[in-house]
């Protein structure tokens, strides 16, 4: 079942997190409000640029909602598909590191062995400041 959902996630090219089932759809209407879209965009830093994208999201959620058809009464939920595996414990030895040069090569900008990032948090534009495609 996990692999099915991963596939679903890959199909929707927006990087939407699966498992986001009930919040958008309490009444079963299948519509997602502008507030929810804005919230998602902030959280995941994705851009639902068009109405089609939102429609695809709604379809994805509806597809996942079909899980509710399964009767899970009295079934103990799993923690994860790995839950029967033993968690390997590593000894506390230093075996990695010392590869600053290699790592820094990945960075677009570097200053004296530091990665360079934009300052602090960049404010996202508010809902009313954006192109109001959802309202039209």
């Amino acid at each position: 079942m996990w692999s099915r959902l991963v596939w679903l996630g890959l199909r929707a090219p927006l990087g939407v997190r699966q498992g986001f089932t009930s919040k958008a759809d309490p009444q079963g209407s299948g519509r997602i409000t502008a507030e929810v879209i804005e919230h998602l965009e902030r959280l995941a830093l994705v851009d639902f640029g068009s109405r089609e994208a939102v429609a695809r999201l709604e379809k994805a959620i509806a597809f996942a909602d079909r899980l509710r058809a399964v009767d899970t009464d009295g079934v103990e939920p799993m923690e994860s598909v790995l839950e029967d595996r033993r968690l390997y414990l590593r000894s506390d030895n230093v075996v990695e590191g010392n590869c600053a040069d290699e790592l820094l090569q990945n960075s677009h900008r570097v200053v004296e062995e530091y990665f360079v990032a934009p300052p602090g948090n960049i404010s996202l534009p508010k809902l009313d400041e954006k192109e109001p495609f959802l309202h039209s």
Partner: protein
Amino acid sequence: MHFRNYASQGASRHSEAESPDQDSGVTMAAPMLRWGCRGRRWAFARVDGGSCHRRGAPTGSTSNRIRGQSSVAQQPLHTAQKPRKGEHKWAAVVGLEIHAQISSNSKLFSGSQVRFSAPPNSLVSFFDASLPGTLPVLNRRCVEAAVMTGLALNCHINKKSLFDRKHYFYADLPAGYQITQQRLPIAVNGSLIYGVCAGKKQSQVIPKMVRIKQIQLEQDSGKSLHDDLRSQTLIDLNRAGVGLLEVVLEPDMSCGEEAATAVRELQLILQALGTSQANMAEGQLRVDANISVHHPGEPLGVRTEVKNLNSIRFLAKAIDYEIQRQINELENGGEILNETRSFHQKLGCTMSMRDKEGKQDYRFMPEPNLPPLVLYDATSLPAGADPQQVINIDQIRETLPELPSVTREKLVQQYGMLLEHSFTLLNEVGLLEFFQNVIKETRAEPKKVTSWVLNTFLGYLKQQNLAVSESPVTPSALAELLDLLDSRTISSSAAKQVFKELWKREGKTPGQIVSEKQLELMQDQGALEQLCHSVMEAHPQVVMDVKKGNPRAVNKLIGLVRKATQSRADPVMIKEILEKKMSL
């Protein structure tokens, strides 16, 4: 299979607004509203004028202390002193979130080294840098550290605990999430007992308890250095992935002093266990405080979170400031916003770190790459298991080092000192070791040693703001001095003189100083008796006064004899001789 619904994030007690940075960068959002109404709290105190434990002068309020510190953070005092009739008193509620860096060789989920200072990004593995294809591998030592700490804090150790991802975007968190234990942490429901000094001379120790909600394992983030000039942030990932123990203290404390004392006790425990060096200055122990005020009997007020507390002292200050700020705000008809505030050391006040982004939603999900962490005890240990791969809680419990509370008890039993003395000995870094070294080398009575170490030695240290490690007087020197005193070679006032000389760091031993300054006590009993006799003859009036029963006259006589001996006679001996002569 059905999905765990993380929508009920009200279950998580507070949210972290940003990476646990030392430097206060911009915060993401205000923490969540839910505080959790508790019916009873253990350490409940009224907040009169900001100080919850009487310290002598009733007007000694916290605001006064802070006012003395800075000229900027002035707060009106009219509210705090005398509540008008019918007006409610205020109660403050303080909870703490403490992050302690685990003392281990390598990081929580990777094999790169844990070290305080190193060239930027040199202690970073591919996993720490969050490169694709890397996976977390749990460090056994970190789990042991968590279990030890949980046991020392009377927690229930969860035999099964789970790892989760907590998502937020910040440059020093390369993965975009932190691996933590939100659903089921490794230890829950413990307690921490600490002793607050109270009473007229701060001589009484009152035990208080704060409940421990949980202890969880989580990753530390990297460090951000904000370069506002060039509008950029420099990122060093050396700290990213280091194991942390998050210890959550329930809001059972009611003022800065209680919080500071609890943190100090936790520090001592962690250091005794060896699970963390817990040095706040080096960032190994970070504390965030959650503070609210309310009228007793009414529901809890809106809380604020205060961050950037770098020392025990500032922790107390910041909390007391915030309590008073909230009281002032409410009494002036304002309201408290549920926000994160940062403490500014120089100004002695808290300031809002409010960001316009709104509430944070961490989208917790199970860490898919880590199965549940299963711990065993003596009864459940699987037969034939690889000892390297199993952790036995009972075995860890048996090998726990001695905790500070036990050390104190032993000091009281063994050396007959007061409990508050034992607290002082443990609270000052290096003092206990110093004390024990003196005890080892001297013949003098333990009570004498205690008195000299806690009064004279500590007094000199405090006066010159020195640490024990910077002391010019070594344990051996003090031991030698106390031996001289014990053998009545010198008087106690001479000993104080010698100590003063020793402090000058001129490299002389106590014996040398004594002979140089001729401080030896007169040993010749006969000569002393002669002197007493001649003094008595020379001052008949004083002798008359003594015989009449004037208590001060005796001291005057003793003083005269001492002068005659150039302070080289033991006043106790002088008194004995005089009294014998006067047949008193």
